């Protein structure tokens, strides 16, 4: 355990340093990324105001809070995408990862976590601007803040495992991009990324209950903006833990088959 702690510490350090190297491009990327929730925020808070102050249980200020917290959650749950796998295999990077005496997922989990820490620090000024410009309604309790802290990292882990599993499809087909596109569409609709799920049709909400997506976006957001009871907060963390354990189990299950399939011809 201590040895893994050391590896994670070193990799996170490298992630932070790598992010510092690319600070300008990260900032531009972040500004581009923030455009999406700002549009949602303006649209929904306007709708709320024009409907007598609230829509689907959200006031205009709560919509603003929802989408500002969204930007933080989105910053943290960025993980290695399946698109990168093809390049990783073609350039031989994956062979190098396999030669290390540790499971390669540790590399991605730790390295990206490092980049996320730096990214959050860089997000703070943008968040301040959004808060000043749009004035969110948010006053979290310490419990909510604590649950939120664990929930965003839970979201990070769930997304990491999901996208790793998708990436492993690269061993069987080079068309993983199409599968990933389908995944992103499903995630956009069923995670609360587009709108809070309570605004979606009932059948969508039922479907979302059987899928991991809402635990990667909506749950941490709702935890911080005060939309969940204490019971719901802890049940949410338990659900996240369940999806993480499920991801670990599934990865264990398919990993040996993936290694067999991996045939690094010329890489």
């Amino acid at each position, binding site marked *: 355990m201590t*040895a893994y702690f*050391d590896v994670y*510490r070193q990799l996170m350090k490298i992630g932070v*340093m*790598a992010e510092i190297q690319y600070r300008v491009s990260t900032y531009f990327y972040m500004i581009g990324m923030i455009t999406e929730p700002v549009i949602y925020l303006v649209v929904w808070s306007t709708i709320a105001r024009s409907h007598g102050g609230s829509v689907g249980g959200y006031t205009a200020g709560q919509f603003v809070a929802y989408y500002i917290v969204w930007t933080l959650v989105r910053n943290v749950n960025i993980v290695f995408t399946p698109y990168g796998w093809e390049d990783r295999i073609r350039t031989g990077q994956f*062979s190098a990862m*396999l*030669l290390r005496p540790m499971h390669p997922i540790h590399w991605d989990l730790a390295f990206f976590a490092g980049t996320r820490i730096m990214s959050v620090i860089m997000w703070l000024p943008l968040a301040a601007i959004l808060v000043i410009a749009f004035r969110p309604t948010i006053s979290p309790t310490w419990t909510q803040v604590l649950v939120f802290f664990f929930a965003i990292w839970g979201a990070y882990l769930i997304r990491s495992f999901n996208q790793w599993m998708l990436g492993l499809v690269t061993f069987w087909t080079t068309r993983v991009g199409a599968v990933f596109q389908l995944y992103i569409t499903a995630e956009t609709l069923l995670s609360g990324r587009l709108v809070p799920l309570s605004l979606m049709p009932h059948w969508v909400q039922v479907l979302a209950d059987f899928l991991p997506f809402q635990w990667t976006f909506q749950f941490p957001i709702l935890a911080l903006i005060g939309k969940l009871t204490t019971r719901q907060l802890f049940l949410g963390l338990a659900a996240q833990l369940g999806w993480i354990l499920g991801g670990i189990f599934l990865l264990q299950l398919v990993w040996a088959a993936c290694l067999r399939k*991996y045939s*690094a011809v010329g890489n």
Partner: protein
Amino acid sequence: MVKPVIHVDQLTKTYVIPEREGGLKAALRSLVHRKWRDVKAVDHISFDIQPGEVVGFLGPNGAGKTTTLKMLSGLLHPTSGEVTVLGFVPQRRDKAYLKQITLVMGNRNQLQWDLPALDSFELNRAIYRIPTRQFRETRDEFIELLDLQDLVRKPVRNLSLGERMKVEIAASLLQRPQVLYLDEPTIGLDVTMQARIRSFIAEYNRRHDATVLLTSHYMADVEALCKRVIVIHHGHLLFDGSLADLVARFAAFKTIGVTLEDTSADLSRYGEIMSVDSDRVTLRVPKTETPRVTARLLADLPVMDLTVEEPLIEDVIRQVFAQEAPLEELPA
């Protein structure tokens, strides 16, 4: 008898490759009727390597060298045959095994591109769980041996190819592996850098009694480091023995250099004239004819100087690569 570090028995790797003719018709046909072809990259090769040996693993491009190294390092599962290295079955990828080997590929970069190599070294310390004291000793030793003092503090992307290779090799050996698979470690480097890396590998082998399996297209690497060579071609093992035996067996010609008092003499009847450099003529003569031709030259002409030389190792290797049949079918 010492147990071999690397034991390979009838090792075979077959890739199943999709194939189709060119053109739209063939593309449409392949949608319903896909054709596959078996390609044997490595075909029933066997060899043992003893502790501390440095062995050259030679073959032209596509011979199966890299595939073999990947099977030995556990990256590829063999189709059939048996491999054990340090008592481990590589494809099981035991952590204890991975800690004791390294695979260096000349055209690959495992270092963190944007960061100084010292950060990658530190990361390897954590990954390989190298005790801090041992890590510092090894790191400083390598920095000195490879003259890396200034290089390890620069971001890797700012290093030249040769500098990067030196740093890469240092990073790969920090855990002091017992078995080194080096795939073209000097590819694309200038002669000075090649020599530096060669001497480092030799020194590492001497200090740590490590076993080295080296592929290289530069015969200078092989001559400097390897007493033994294994030659494969089209996945078959063509030769396994000493470099001297390889030359003796496959060199069909020798070269005779003659310096004459009378430079007008015609030497074409003694052998194929390869070059004429003022008063010195170089002849290519069949190996079996060398003693007779030498005697005739000395008897017939006013010879001031005469040398008989083995052909260049590159020429011998080229001739070996021209062979198609496996070892046992070749004439002794």
